[in-house]
């Protein structure tokens, strides 16, 4: 199958004409989204443009160290973003969450490349950077859900936590139900998503590969594999992030430390 034709810059600019639809509707119904819309579209275009330059160079040099380094930068940025979008304290969580992400997502990425794809060189930009980006982009949201759900539920359902402790639960035993619920909350969207995949929508990786000229059967194999990888990466990173942070987030009396949460100014 042939790759889809390139889009000329002129035609892409015509694509921006689609923005007229929300802009006009926003004017008519006073949605007040024009400013935010333009900022968001501007950021998206700018960031993707810069990344494309970066990718061009990464593909050009295709140096294993540079590729690995870039994956690490993406992981650090994803951890930063995960904590920034939660109610948790940055200084307390950045390192343990990054470490959990490096082991969780990094480990699964290596497995994906080495065992499933099995290429001559594990550290090519095509596999490491592109698949890594896909893995991180799709697991980030769940990582946020998992970590914040755990701490917020313990804070909100403090009576239940106290009750469990008074039932004889030790520190770990009292936190286990909250841990379970947090991990399930992180995984639930994927379970729903995987069950409807292909029926309700065509997933991104598959679409990309078909547009790139791959045959649909190659595309679905990659898609199935990446979904399994994302699922494993989320489970592992959320579990590790909670293991790494949980012990230090409680004092000796079992009380959740107040500085776990970001101070409200």
């Amino acid at each position, binding site marked *: 199958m042939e790759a889809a034709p390139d889009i000329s810059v002129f035609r892409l600019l015509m694509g921006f004409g689609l923005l007229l639809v929300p802009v006009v509707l926003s004017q008519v119904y006073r949605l007040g989204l024009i400013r935010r819309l333009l900022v968001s579209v501007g950021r998206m275009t700018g960031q993707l443009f810069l990344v494309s330059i970066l990718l061009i160079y990464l593909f050009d040099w295709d140096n294993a160290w540079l590729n690995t380094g870039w994956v690490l930068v993406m992981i650090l940025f994803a951890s930063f973003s995960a904590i920034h979008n939660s109610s948790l304290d940055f200084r307390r969580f950045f390192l343990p969450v990054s470490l959990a992400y490096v082991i969780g997502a990094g480990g699964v990425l290596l497995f994906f490349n080495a065992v499933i794809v099995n290429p001559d060189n594990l550290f090519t930009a095509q596999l490491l950077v592109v698949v890594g980006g896909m893995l991180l982009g799709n697991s980030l949201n769940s990582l946020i859900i998992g970590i914040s759900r755990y701490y917020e539920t313990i804070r909100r359902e403090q009576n239940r936590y*106290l009750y469990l*402790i008074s039932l*004889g639960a030790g520190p770990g035993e009292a936190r286990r139900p909250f841990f379970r619920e947090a991990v399930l909350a992180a995984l639930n969207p994927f379970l729903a998503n995987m069950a409807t995949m292909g029926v309700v929508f065509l997933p991104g990786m598959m679409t990309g590969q078909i547009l790139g000229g791959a045959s649909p059967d190659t595309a679905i194999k990659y898609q199935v594999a990446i979904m399994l990888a994302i699922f494993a990466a989320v489970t592992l990173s959320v579990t590790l992030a909670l293991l790494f942070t949980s012990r230090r987030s409680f004092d*000796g009396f079992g009380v959740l430390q107040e500085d776990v949460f970001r101070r409200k100014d």
Partner: protein
Amino acid sequence: MISIPCSDNVFKSLRERTGPGPWFLEMLRLENIFLRLGNNPLFRNLSVSVPAGGRLLVRGRSGSGKSSLLRLLLGFGRPDQGRVVVMDRVLGLDNVWALRRHMAYVSQDMELGRGRVGDFYREAFAFRANRGMGFRLEETVHLLETFDLDKKVLDQPLEKLSGGERQRVAIILTLLLHRDIYLLDEVTSALDQPLKERVARYFEQEVKATLVVVSHDPVWDVKKFQTLDLEKHGSRA
């Protein structure tokens, strides 16, 4: 200082249950407690003593520190000054987890999470501290019936129970664990009148353990309790 009298047979029953090992004349003592909540002084020099088998009813309007009092006893809040003494030991880092195993705490509007009631009970009996107690189905069914629940409730998911059912499920589990001290925080609030009566009478008549009941519900029989009015003994003294 408030002292609460208790009858001799309470000691006898306590001794029968705990054997010849250590047992206590005084179960709980708050000693000259000062506690601030933010800039708000909650307790100023509060002292209370509850003997073994004694019963304390804590009253006071909302915000007077009723729940904070229970949290102090559980070691979940630390006083700014003063000491909390449980079973002759000053509550501290070294003994708090062990002492909590003698207490049961139930609050209002209990959230219990998800999963079947029976599994929830079994999980509590699988806690390291409770191993060797054994989950006794017969006693469980008896208590369920006492509080007007069918034994089928054991197969129902916790999240499908009504507030009142959940409340009773929570209370029953603490009774199955036979604790020495019961800390009850407005436990009857989600129940209708006949069930309020049943819960209050059960604790007043059947439970020999030390009771600390926080409630403004007139269902509790004041004659059976020593009362502590936080508005008199707390910050507004």
